[in-house]
């Protein structure tokens, strides 16, 4: 049960997320690498100034101010990678999910005999690998 991800983030995770988003925002403004690197070093210095804060109330306040500043200064046209969500080429080429192959007609399956011979075995091995790493699913989760 410890493998189910909870929605609560630690303070360190939130700060790191803010830092990464702020860096991506800087990349949107400064696209030549050496200029961006200079601004990124300045930003890192701002984060490092309050990095060793032990008082959690103050730390949360800094985090909140940082989020507010990022929101006010976000670039109106952020820089996305083309195939990532938000980019231009995201989901242009659709890969069908694996279970579609189970619905093929037997005549179609006969065109690839080697693959379909080993398919059931492969499925069993995959389920075994999953259960080894993440544990068996709870019986209560299978039905509403």
């Amino acid at each position, binding site marked *: 049960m410890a493998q189910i991800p909870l929605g609560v983030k630690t303070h360190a995770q939130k700060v790191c997320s803010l830092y990464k988003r702020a860096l991506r925002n800087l990349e949107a403004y400064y696209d030549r690498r050496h200029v961006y690197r200079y601004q990124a070093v300045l930003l890192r210095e701002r984060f490092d100034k309050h990095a060793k804060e032990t008082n959690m109330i103050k730390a949360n306040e800094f985090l909140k101010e940082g989020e507010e500043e990022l929101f006010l200064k976000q670039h*109106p046209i952020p*820089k996305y990678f083309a195939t990532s969500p938000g980019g*231009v080429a*995201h*989901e242009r080429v659709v890969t069908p999910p694996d279970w579609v192959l189970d619905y093929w007609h037997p005549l179609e399956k006969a065109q690839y005999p080697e693959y379909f011979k080993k398919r059931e075995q492969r499925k069993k091995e995959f389920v075994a690998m999953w259960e080894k790493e993440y544990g068996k699913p709870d019986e209560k989760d299978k039905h509403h």
Partner: protein
Amino acid sequence: MCFNSFFFLFFFMLINYFFFVYFIMNGLSVFFEWEIISFNSMSIVMSILLDWMSLLFMMFVSLISSVVIFYSKSYMNSELNLNRFIILVLMFVFSMVLLIISPNLISILLGWDGLGLISYCLVIYYQNLKSYNAGMLTALSNRIGDVMILMVICWVMNYGSWNYIFYFDFMKNDYVMFIISFMIIIAAMTKSAQIPFSSWLPAAMAAPTPVSALVHSSTLVTAGVYLLIRFNYLLIDMFFFKVLLFLSILTMFMSGISANYEFDLKKIIALSTLSQLGLMMSILSLGFPDIAFFHLLTHAMFKALLFMCAGVIIHMMNDIQDIRYMGGLSLYIPLTSLCLNISNLSLCGIPFLSGFYSKDLILEMVSFNSFNLMVFILFYLSTGLTVFYTFRLIMYVMINDFNLMMIYNLYDEDYIMLNSMFVLLFMSLLSGSFLSWFIFSYPYMIYLPFNLKLMVIYVSILGSILGFMVSNMGIYSLNKLLLSYNLSSFLCLMWFMPNLSTYGLSYIYLNFSQILFKNIDMGWSEIYSGKGIFNILKNYSVFYNIYQMNNFKIYLFSFILWFMILFIFFFI
């Protein structure tokens, strides 16, 4: 399929060229009429008008589409459904040709609707979320124009036929013509993306690049301008030219500014197209339809070339369209950067390239005739802005340091794409002079003071210096965008008009329809029709089931009841 279509369209272009030269030299114009049905006084007639304007436009459309189809053989070669794409493009060309040759409104409607629907199919060709949204925006904006043309058809029936070309000379100052002109202008504005309807053109860049090169630079968006050129008699005597002038000049200015803040390569070129469309509409509304037509044709050439170069660059960058990822490409893709530079310079109106002939003529006509000061200022300011964003684009993409993430992608030697670009390059260099010799049998007599004549050059030099300086500063030092954040957001998101025309118009109705849906469709109408009747029937059948459960008392009681009824009827 690609090569067949290319050869067919190229041959069609040659035929059109020869007929165009013959027709314009001899001043001919051919009107075909085919009577489909004739019954007493009603007759349905299909007609085709071939004059020099239709033949010239058809020649340009078929040239650009043949070159684009040849280009997409290489551009879309990883596409599984290339046949579908080519067939859609061919259907598009067919609708455009139908629109060009038709002298009556019904076949214009067929071509117009075909253009709108097929451009929707082409925009949603890559089936991701952005394409679907863009397609919706394109289709619905074009639909408004379709509705307007349908209403024009209804109103023109007052005159007895749909052949509008017969009615201009003796129907001026008629109230019906007033309404018809109003609707035609709105239809042309939706198709050519003028100010209230301008949000679809940058969004439609979700389409594949060959589609943008053919559709969104030279054919679809110029259909509105072409319609107004055909209907230009309506503009001269009515007051509409002021409204159209105002909106088109604002479009020109707004898109020129937005292109300066935009970072997506295809969106910059789309906004540049929008700016030139505003220019065409404004010179049309000032009363010079032939100059507007001239600019339409030269613009088609270099804009299609520009889109194709952008396509090569996008292919190189693995589908990235953001210019912030690019830099210093001119040394590595020399032939493509040649085409890009020539088409950009032609767009700016550099002397003796093709754009110069049309743009300079337009600006000289504006200076020569005494119009409003605002008109004058906005025209020259927009010309300067054109040079500004062009130089900014060249600075970001071509000049400066190399900014790519990897080197091995630099592949310029795809000769299929290059050959198609060279055809358009040749035309983009020469079409200006070639068209000006054909269309204008005598030149316009323009007398201007010396500085006013050179004003274009001053504005271009100023624009190029500013473009160079601002890009330099923007790339290499503190980005001034942060200092004027509110103003920059306003200017780069197209004055928030896309938000107004999408959220602003539809939110209140969608909210209201949600309330209606929850209360009526899923509420009261379920009680009175669906679930309610089901519940009533179920309860009644539960009730009646008691009588069918073989209860002996029921049988005795019903026996007594029948006995009483029979007794009453027969013995009393």
